């Protein structure tokens, strides 16, 4: 009972955090018809800075880290990415009014990872002073790529069966390459490489890290405005997408939280790391995912997956998911 109360109190407290405040404010001003816009060039640059910063920190950390410690969390990341897509394939994609390829694409997007949501999670952890292994955010691709690849494979197999073609051959390596070349993963891996092979400590401390929190607040504002705009699109498709958009992030986050907790008790994986795994799982890809899916599953209607992800899934993942995992962690790990 007390645990439930703690959880609720924790949730409320998070809502005063500026990160969430900016997100919600973005939705509100968009709903009120504000003509405020943040230039696209600024949005692209902020995303680049955040992902580069995540990569740099990860790379510098991995130099010092015990690679053995990373194996179980990385395996969990892969398993969660694949699991989310399979779960969606056999729930959402089977619902009435949901076209199979739309459902599969949506599950793929929710299995993949949003760098912005991850950055929000890191920001909140840092504001709380909760420790995490610096390399955890660098597990991003381990969850992201398998999810996108599996979704595209499942969709192609389904579609080629529909066409009566027996060969549902899919160019898996092509999809992986396509993912890695996308702007989000490129920036992350670029940072990772620079963190590993050069000594960027000074520029990291004086530039990338201090700008991180500030730019994150602007990004949250943009994502709030965008969420409101995409909600509109969602209205034209089956209601199940809205339901999925609300439920899936939390279910996915909790699954990852559970698996991460096992790693905590068996291997000493940090509570902060557990939270970040849950944040990644609960997030849905917003930068590289949509164009990858648009190109790879052309017959899937982008309004379904972009609407459910950007319009509903992302605000839920950030505004409800992250505070939930923080509150849960304070109950489970006593932090």
């Amino acid at each position, binding site marked *: 009972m007390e645990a439930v109360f703690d959880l609720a109190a924790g949730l409320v407290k998070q809502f005063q955090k500026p990160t969430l405040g900016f997100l919600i404010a973005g939705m509100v001003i968009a709903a009120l018809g504000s003509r405020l816009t943040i*230039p*696209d060039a600024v949005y692209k640059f902020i995303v680049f800075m955040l992902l580069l910063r995540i990569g740099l920190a990860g790379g510098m950390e991995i130099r010092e880290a015990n690679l053995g410690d990373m194996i179980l969390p990385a395996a969990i990341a892969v398993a969660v990415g694949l699991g989310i897509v399979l779960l969606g394939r056999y729930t959402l994609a089977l619902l009435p009014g949901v076209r199979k390829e739309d459902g599969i694409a949506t599950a793929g997007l929710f299995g993949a990872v949003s760098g912005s949501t991850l950055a929000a999670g890191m920001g909140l952890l840092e504001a709380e002073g909760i420790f995490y292994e610096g390399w955890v955010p660098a597990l991003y691709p381990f969850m992201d790529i398998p999810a996108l690849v599996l979704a595209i494979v499942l969709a192609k197999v389904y579609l080629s069966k529909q066409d009566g073609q027996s060969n549902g051959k899919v160019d898996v390596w092509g999809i992986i390459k396509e993912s890695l070349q996308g702007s989000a993963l490129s920036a992350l891996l670029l940072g990772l490489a620079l963190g590993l092979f050069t000594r960027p400590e000074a520029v990291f401390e004086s530039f990338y890290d201090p700008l991180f929190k500030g730019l994150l607040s602007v990004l949250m504002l943009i*994502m709030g405005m965008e969420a409101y705009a995409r909600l509109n699109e969602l209205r034209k498709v089956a209601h199940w997408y809205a339901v999925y958009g609300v439920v899936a992030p939390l279910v996915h986050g909790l699954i990852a939280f559970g698996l991460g907790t096992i790693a905590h008790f068996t291997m000493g994986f940090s509570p902060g790391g557990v939270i970040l795994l849950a944040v990644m799982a609960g997030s849905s890809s917003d930068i590289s995912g949509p*164009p990858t899916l*648009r*190109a790879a599953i*052309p*017959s899937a209607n*982008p309004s379904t997956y*972009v609407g459910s992800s950007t319009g509903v899934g992302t605000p839920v993942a950030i505004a409800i998911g992250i505070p939930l995992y923080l509150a849960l962690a304070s109950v489970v790990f006593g932090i």
Partner: protein
Amino acid sequence: MTQPATKVVIVTEEVILNGVIKIIEDIGVRGYTVLSARGKGSHNVRSGGQPSVTAAFTNIKIEAIVSDRAKAEQIADTIASKYFANYAGIVYLSQIEVLRGEKFKPGFSGGGA
């Protein structure tokens, strides 16, 4: 001085730009011009220049000038049949008159500096 030519215009999603260019070049046309656009059609409103997590769905307008009318139609047909079942887009032809007509004959690749 001028010679008749056909301008093929395609307005579609940025995500298929490379595919459209490939069709144009495969049919033997060496030049094209691309402009950023936004617009609305039978699909959703699309944005352009706005901050958008789906900026990849921005519209573009591609123009290819071809001296040979049949090739122009072939480009238009190929693009429409390959893409427009799944992607938002329109394609149209317009009669124009070009100077230095030899530039728009397939295979030309000379040029000044």
